[in-house]
Structures are given as structure tokens and as C-alpha cells.
């Protein structure tokens, strides 16, 4: 699977030949620490495959924990060339000892608790480079180096971070990666490393206080207005909020109707909110409301009138009876 570099070598001289990865060192490594391979890890292997194809390298999977043989096969279908199976849970010193002679080019960790602790430590111990919070990865076609995309300002944008020193270590939020490959034609090997690391005893857990959901801190807000017609209609908004883990608010009309309390009033005269999703049910919208939601991320408006002021403000409009739509949406969410 080595890359054909004959044209490149002719162009660049013999120097390029020395940079070719060999089967013994280099390569793109994915570290699975939790035993069973979940969908996120298969996505990460797929991302490793894409990087390795661009770099001309192999994809290795270090599978610690007590994974079965079936997991090795799934990893190969998802893009791994060689799966190395080990037992137990490595500490940082174990991983450093494992990786130092192998000289990996790229090491990818999932952003699990253990991945977040071991990935940066490995980078520091091997004098590598790190992106500790990556949402995506690509290979810079000119410099042949790995570039991580790091979410900044609460994912308002992603910053390109080029990883200069080898190994390039990235701790990747696997939920943001594209779907995993599942290609039966792929081939690879599953090998036992013979290594068994000690497993630490599970730690005791305690209950922690949970901060109450407030309009100011909620990531999702469901708000209702006069279009919900009755208190029963507004109750649907409350149920939707429960299903979505959202806070409930309303406009002045809802306050006057007695459906919400004063601290649930959204707008310039009430609370100014900045959720990532604002779902407005039966609200026509006015300046008071728009000032209150100007920092909101995505605004979805459900109300029947296409010429209502909120129709131009909302990202998505559904021109329908809000009570009927809330009922249908609730049904879909509870399915």
C-alpha cells in the first residue's frame, strides 16, 4: 500500500525516497481504550484511513481493553490495515513505552475521558504536536502535514491548526466526524501484542448538584405566544421543552394570558436570551421579542401567517397551526 512516488522523486531528487513510511515505523495510529469499538471509534478509524491515504501510510489500531475478535474485523472494514490487540488499560507510561520505538506519524484519540488525559500526555512525552480539541482533520496537500480543525467560540467557526512535530497527536470529538466506512472488500490483519496492562478498580461515585435550567443558560428554548390559543395549547410547549431538555419562555401576550411567569418573559423588557436553538410557537414577533433573541443561534418559527414579522427573522418557518404542529412534533420525539 505504499504510495507511488516515482514522479515526485524525479521532480524532487532522492530526498523524497527517505521520507517514505515503512511498515515498521510511522503510520497513522488510532487508540481505542474502552474495549468494544463503538460507532465513534469506527468513524475515527475512517478519518485515520483518509489521512493515511493522503500521507501514503498504513492505519494501525491499538485496541486495548477486552475487545472481541469481531471488533477487529469491524475495524478492518472501517479502514484499519493492522489491528493490535492488548489487554487492560494503559497508563501514560505504558503508552509512551509502546509508541516510542514505533515512531508514529499521527496518533488519534477519541475525546473520551481517558483519551483526553492520555493524548496530550503522549504528545508532550514524545515531543510531538497536539490538537487537544479537534472536530475534523485533513492533510495539507502542499506540506504533507496534518491540519486539525479546532472548534472556537462555542463552535461559531473552526480554526486550522497545522501539527508540525511528529507524532501529530489529535484528540477528536468523534460525534462530529462523517459516517464510518463499512467496506467488506478491505483486508487487514489482527495481531495479539501479548501486552496486558493493569486495570484500575472502578472508583466510587457521588451525586453532584445539577444547576437548574434557566432561560439565560439554556442551549435550547421553546417559547409560546398567543397563537397557542389556550393554556392547554401552551402546555404542549412545556411538554416539547421537556422532551428536548429545553427551558420554557414566552412573549408579553403569553404573560398577559397567565401562561408564564414574569421571569419567563423573553424580550427587551424581560430576559435577553442566547440559546443555540430558539423554537417559537404561535409567536408573530415584534421588536421587543427580536431584541431579546438577537443573540440566539437558529430560530424556528411555527405560526400560520407568512407575512408575520417573525417570518423574515426566523431561519426556518413552518406556516401551520402551532398547536397541531407541536402535537405532531411531540409524537415524533416520543417515538
Amino acid at each position, binding site marked *: 500500500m505504499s504510495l507511488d512516488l516515482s514522479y515526485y522523486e524525479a521532480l524532487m531528487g532522492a530526498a523524497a525516497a527517505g521520507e517514505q513510511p515503512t511498515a515498521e515505523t510511522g503510520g497513522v495510529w488510532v487508540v481505542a481504550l474502552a474495549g468494544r469499538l463503538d460507532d465513534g471509534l469506527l468513524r475515527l478509524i475512517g478519518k485515520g484511513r483518509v489521512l493515511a491515504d493522503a500521507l501514503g501510510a498504513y492505519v494501525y489500531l491499538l485496541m486495548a481493553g477486552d475487545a472481541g475478535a469481531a471488533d477487529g474485523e469491524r475495524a478492518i472494514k472501517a479502514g484499519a490495515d493492522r489491528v493490535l490487540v492488548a489487554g487492560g488499560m494503559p497508563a501514560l507510561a505504558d503508552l509512551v513505552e509502546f509508541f516510542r520505538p514505533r515512531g508514529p506519524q499521527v496518533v488519534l484519540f477519541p475525546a473520551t475521558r481517558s483519551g483526553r488525559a*492520555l493524548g*496530550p500526555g503522549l504528545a*508532550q512525552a514524545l515531543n510531538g504536536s497536539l490538537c487537544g480539541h479537534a472536530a475534523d482533520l485533513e492533510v495539507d496537500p502542499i506540506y504533507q502535514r496534518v491540519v486539525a480543525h479546532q472548534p472556537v467560540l462555542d463552535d461559531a467557526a*473552526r480554526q486550522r491548526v497545522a501539527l508540525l512535530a511528529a507524532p501529530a497527536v489529535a484528540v477528536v470529538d468523534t460525534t462530529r466526524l462523517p459516517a464510518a466506512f463499512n467496506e467488506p472488500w478491505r483486508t487487514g490483519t489482527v495481531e495479539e501484542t501479548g501486552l496486558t496492562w493493569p486495570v484500575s478498580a472502578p472508583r466510587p461515585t*457521588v451525586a453532584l448538584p445539577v444547576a437548574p435550567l434557566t432561560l439565560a443558560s439554556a442551549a435550547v428554548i421553546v417559547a409560546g405566544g398567543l397563537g397557542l390559543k389556550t393554556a392547554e395549547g401552551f402546555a404542549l410547549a412545556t411538554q416539547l421543552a421537556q422532551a*428536548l431538555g429545553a427551558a420554557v419562555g414566552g412573549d408579553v401576550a403569553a404573560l398577559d394570558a397567565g401562561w408564564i411567569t414574569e421571569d419567563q418573559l423573553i424580550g427587551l423588557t424581560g430576559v435577553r436570551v442566547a440559546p443555540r436553538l430558539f423554537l417559537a410557537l404561535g409567536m408573530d414577533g415584534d421588536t421587543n421579542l427580536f431584541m431579546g433573541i438577537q443573540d440566539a*443561534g437558529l430560530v424556528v418559527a411555527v405560526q400560520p401567517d407568512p407575512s408575520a414579522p417573525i417570518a423574515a427573522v426566523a431561519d*426556518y418557518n413552518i406556516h401551520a397551526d402551532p398547536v397541531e404542529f407541536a402535537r405532531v412534533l411531540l409524537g415524533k420525539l416520543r417515538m
Partner: protein
Amino acid sequence: MRIVVCVKQTYDPATVKISRSREEFDLRGAVKITNPADRYALEAALRLREAAGGEVIALTVGDADAEDVGREAIAMGADRALLIAGPELASATGRAVARALAAGIGHLAPVDLVLTGQVAAVDGAGGLAPRLAAALGWPVALDVVSLAAAADGGIVATAAVGPGVGEVISLALPAVVAIAAGIERPRYPQPARIANAWAPGLLATCTAQDLGLTAEDLAPDVEVGGLVLPPERTRGQVIAGPLATAAEELLAALKAQRLISAAAA
């Protein structure tokens, strides 16, 4: 117990804008503050000092502006501060910062406990504590929301592992602990302490050379490039069709944008 709290200066995320045309941060009008998570780390250190006694030292790396962060830490209650400053450190990347902090901790020896904030405000990076632990060869605990001194001379840390669930971790000292923003709200500096924060002798400054760091130690490990921007916002889109189809289309769009969890729909 000697506790070192690593604090860093960052831009207030509320004042950082994104320039779409230049695909980079627009820092005009951006204000420099102490990283919010680091204030939680300082609060945890102050509470531990109140319970178990000892000394709290704020440690920061940066340019001369970073002195403000050290002064603010003293105003909040730190006993003293050490600023590792220099032009080459102002743009230092994670690996160099971890090495500089490790050298600073060596300079402040004997140190029992090092606390850091869990995440950086603007870029969301969270690798400092494990990097520092690797550089020092100490154990590390992440996502910790509260600390207590243990009877055996170590500490007991409570780490948040899920909503409302904490895990109790016993650590032998010395150790590195990353504190997550959570239960123990950072205190406001008292006016008298603010006034005294500029008293002579509380904040020491040294350079990377003083700590024996070479240019090779401070070489960058990453190169920060431009921003990748999401598609521009289009308002006024209409989802038409029968209610059931519209609801499904809406849920699919929300799921694709990660606004609701896949489990919810």
C-alpha cells in the same frame, strides 16, 4: 501544602468577533481577561488553603500584559505570583507553555499540587493539565469540580463524569488537577485586596532564560492558520408540506446541526 495555580490571559470570548471576509478573528475591541476556568481553579486552591493551610501561588506565562492576571489572582487571594514573561513566550504554543510552566514549578519547588483550568475560553483547548503532568511525571485528574485534603496527606478530588454524577478520585501528591467550571463559583476580589495587589514583592517576574529554557524548548509545535467558517445564515426559509413531513424535515435539520441530540429524535 504549596499549591500552584496556572492562570492564563485570554481574550474575553464575548468581545472576540469573527471576520467573514478575512476568515480570521477580529480582535479590534477585544478585551484581555483571566481565563474563566482558571478562576475556578484559583477558587478551588483558595478553599483548599482555607481547609488545610498552606500557600497559593499563581503562575502565568505570557507577555508583559499578563502581569494583570497575576495581580488579579493576588487580589482574589493568592499569596504571591510568578510571571514568566518574554516576547518569545507571547506567541508560545501548547508544548512550549507546558515546558515553561513545568520549569516555573521546578523553580517554585517544593510544590505539592498544581491546578489548571479545564478549558481555554476562546479556542476550547483542554490539553494543558495532562501535558504538564507528563512534563513533570506526576499523576493527573481531569474535570474536577471540588477538592478536599485527605487524612493520608493526599487529596480527594470529585470529578464530574456526567450530569449530576461525580467520581471520587484519591490522588497522592504531588499531582496535577484540571478544575472544571462548576459548583464552586469564583469569589470576587475584595476592594482592600485589590488595592494591596500592587504592593511590592508579591509578583516576581522572570524570563525563560532564567529558568534554563532554550530556544529549542520553546519551538512551536503547531502553526495556527485561518478559520473555517460555517455557511452564511439564511433567514426566512420555509419548510412546507404536510405536518408530519415538515416535522421530520425539521428534526433532521436540527439533528444535522447538532442542536438536538440524536437520541432525542
